[in-house]
């Protein structure tokens, strides 16, 4: 409650000091749904990045690992396992899958026992922008051609993360891609997709 009280009081003051104090108060709360300040600009930004406790996040990650282990074990069971004396192609993957499930379960138990005090931040704005831009690349890489799709990617990163104007980002991206074309296409002879044109 004291922290929330500090938060309201400092936010209402409106000064730069007040804003920074607000940010510090927010950091102390480790709360999810409270607006935060951008560390670089000092401006208020969205609820990102989100803070996960080591317990919650850790459990999620062990769940993913267990699922991966289950996948390997399930796929191995569709193959010839062979015997202990003469292992088939499914033998090693089955062992490994079972081991991953078991160790993930043990890590999960450790996570449950651990306290909530350790936190992990996920979903930083720049990280999310980069991941989104990256995921867009394979979608258009062969359709639009390598150089156009990578130029679009570079422009997006320079504008959204480098925070430079579009007018400067476009020539910079074109220049960079021209250098890549010279190096990969002319020097190394790598043939990349050119797209429909």
């Amino acid at each position, binding site marked *: 409650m004291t922290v929330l009280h500090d938060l309201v009081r400092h936010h209402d003051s409106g000064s730069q000091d007040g804003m920074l104090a607000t940010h510090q108060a927010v950091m102390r709360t480790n709360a999810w749904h409270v607006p935060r300040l951008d*560390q*670089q600009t000092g401006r208020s930004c969205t609820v990102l*990045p989100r803070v996960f406790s*080591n317990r919650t*996040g*850790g459990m999620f*990650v062990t769940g*993913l*690992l267990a699922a*991966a*282990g289950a*996948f*390997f074990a399930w*796929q191995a069971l569709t*193959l*010839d396992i062979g*015997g*202990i*004396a*003469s292992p088939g*192609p499914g*033998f*090693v*993957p089955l062992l*490994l899958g079972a*081991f*991953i499930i078991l*160790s993930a379960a*043990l*890590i999960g138990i450790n996570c449950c026992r651990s306290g909530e005090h350790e936190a*992990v931040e996920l979903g*930083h704005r*720049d*990280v999310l922008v*980069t*991941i989104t831009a*990256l*995921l867009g*690349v*394979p979608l258009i*890489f062969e359709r639009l051609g*390598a150089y156009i799709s*990578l130029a679009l*990617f*570079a422009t997006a*990163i*320079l504008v959204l*993360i*480098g*925070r430079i104007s579009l007018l400067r980002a476009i020539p910079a*991206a074109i220049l*960079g*891609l021209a250098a*890549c074309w010279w190096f*990969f296409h002319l020097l*190394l*002879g*790598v*043939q*990349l997709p050119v797209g429909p044109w």
Partner: protein
Amino acid sequence: MAGFEHLIGGFAVALSWKGLLYCFLGCLWGTVVGVLPGLGPLAGMTLLLPLTFGLDPTIGIIMLTGIFYGAMYGGSTTSILVRIPGEAASVVTCIDGYEMARKGRAGPALMIAALGSFVGGTVSIIGLMFIAPPLAKVMIAIGPSVQVVLMLLALGVITAVCAGSRLKTATMIALGLALSTVGLDKLTGVPRMTLGSPELTGGLSFTALAIGLFGLSEILINLEKTETIKAIQPKLKDLVPRWIDLRESAPAIGRASIIGFIFGIIPGVSHVVSTFVSYAVEKRLSKHPEEFGKGAIAGVAGPETANNAVTGTAMIPLLALGIPSIPATAILISALTIHGVQPGPLLLTDHPEVFWGLVASMYIGNVILLILNLPLVGIFVNLLRIPYAWLIPMILIVSIIGVYSVNFSNTDIWIMMISGVVGYVLRKFGYEMAPLLLALVLGDRLEENFRLALTMSGGSYAVFADRISVTVLMSVLCLLLALQALAWTVGYRKSVVDETGTS
């Protein structure tokens, strides 16, 4: 005599214009990634791995190795001038290096670090030259069962010595081994874990996975850091150390060369362990231990020499046994395999030009780095002023093109993206990527040798406990335990706790 002739042949390759150019480029890029906080030798190597595909295997390996030891050199610059270790092996250098810089003695600290790196690197190359060939001859004589034992031992040691939870490290090793089973089974030709996709029958692209798990995840983690960096700028004329600096550093450099060389054999974290051991030894032997932490030059000379002395030793298991002891050498194995060169005991007989060309290039690379690092230190420090976001598009574009150009497959780009995001999340929750990568590289051969050994022995597991296997296992195990005990005796763990606040 034959070795000497091979070395001359190696120098002929390394001193060719291509050899010199790519060695220089490797050293330059290595220094850059070493200087830039967050981008270590591993990310530097994985990101440029695809560029070596169009090159001759020897030249490609020369370039990648140049990145490895170049990063060791470059890491000291940021440790001394900014108090930010460029990579893990430079953490200890921060302690006394930055204190020296604060007292206006950044120049001598950088100079001694460079000289120590040069001496350490050279000593380890000489060791590599003499130890690897006879070791390879021994390895040719041993069968698949001993190879399985050695590989399991390497993975076991990594689990024991890696930072963080051992259970998490073991899980990462199992995951790496499991991922290596994707694709056609080498012994029966049956497709495994492919979900019917023809694009996965060749297995998961190592390049895509390595760049994703290391390069991309490291970039994503670095994007979260928003601190501005203020560096101390030394002047060129201040680089010359005083006579007393040289006198105090010389014994430290000598001792650290031996420490780095010996500890380089520990799989997993040898370059980091050796720096802490060297620091602890220097502090213990010093007449003025109270000066350590306040700018003692031996505290810079020792760790910087040790982390470079490791580079040569780390090459011994790679070149003689075909087993990567640290992640950086796993990248080299992958590069060699892509070029159709099988690393291991037969490398010296089948491709002597690769081995001796690499040895010769390491001598030359050390000289290049000495010339490159001292006069150009101002330029490297200015690199820290470039906003990270401006570097990202270029690094990622090179990675994407590189990954695509291995198999000309869009699937590989997807694998890189997905493994990058997965690696980022796993690292945030304390999972190490290095054991996964090492297991991924070893997995294929481990399974093949395991099943071959069982087939040859008629299904008897006693083959893994025969006289030769047990002798090899026990010898290596005793050596590793002795080294570990030595590290603890000289206060490695205490140093880690004292200086970094971590256990």
